[in-house]
């Protein structure tokens, strides 16, 4: 049986990397008088569909996908959630 999952992937700059865009947005928020806001960091959100025999396999493959392309481990961290969207019977496909 093949399962289909939606992956929701969050790529963020590592804390040691300066995020000037985040600093600019933070100053914009301060302009709007949101003085209680700090540490704005801008990252990327990626969605994709992935088919796999089970969640563990999908998880392993996504780890590789993130390491190889979606995130650059030199400057970025990533995390993701997997949500099963449909369980397709092999016979149907």
């Amino acid at each position, binding site marked *: 049986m093949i399962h289909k999952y939606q992956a929701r992937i969050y790529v963020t*700059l590592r804390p040691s990397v*300066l995020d*000037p*865009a985040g600093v*600019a947005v933070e100053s914009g928020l301060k302009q709007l008088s949101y003085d209680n806001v700090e540490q704005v960091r801008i990252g*990327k959100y990626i969605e994709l569909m992935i088919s796999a025999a089970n969640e563990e396999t999908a998880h392993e493959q996504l780890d590789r996908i993130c390491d190889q*392309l979606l995130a*650059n481990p*030199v*400057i970025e961290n990533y995390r993701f959630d997997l949500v099963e969207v449909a369980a397709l019977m092999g016979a149907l496909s």
Partner: protein
Amino acid sequence: MKFGIVVFPGSNCDRDVAYVTKSLLNQPTRMVWHQETDISDIDVVVLPGGFSYGDYLRCGAIAQFSPVMQQVVEHAKQGKFVLGICNGFQVLTEAGLLPGALVRNRDLHFICDRVPIKVKRTDLPWTSAYTAGQVLTLPIAHGEGRYYADADTLKALEDNGQVLFHYCTLTGETDDTGNPNGSLNNIAGICDRTGRVLGMMPHPERASDPLLGGTDGIKLFQGLLAKLADETLSSLSLAK
């Protein structure tokens, strides 16, 4: 010496480099399409500036998986020369041929300017036509050119003499005022451990024809050619 200039979809400095190597320096030059899988005829591979694959995801991130890049990695492994300029530098870091990464400029601006660049060492072919400590004027044009690497990598780069170019002030001070984009250690160009793979954000090809108002860049190519000619001569005499 035969130059091969890789053309990714979105490269836009490829012809500028070809103009320098072919028209100004009279070297055999061919454009290498990113789908090519045989570049064994090439002596010096150049990854030019531009916006490969639209710089989508991250600058150079998608270009690193172009078919030609496997050949470029192989080329480098054989000890042959690779030059990455601007976007080409970004591709080299993404591909792991050079350490670190190029991230968004400190002040968020795309910077298009001519800036002072200080030459750190001159015992490598790339910089052999310069003098140590010489301050060049070279064009830069990038939005993501701030060199970043972790502290250990930075230390290793400096200790191994892998930093060839620093951003500096007009008088050659490598301090914050001479740092246009916030690069760590004012790094503008680095090479790998072998010294044969060079990545730099400044554009030497745009400072090669006197018509463009500066010629500090052409010496990079001239120095390389002179050293390569020496190497060929000595290997020929060894073969005798």
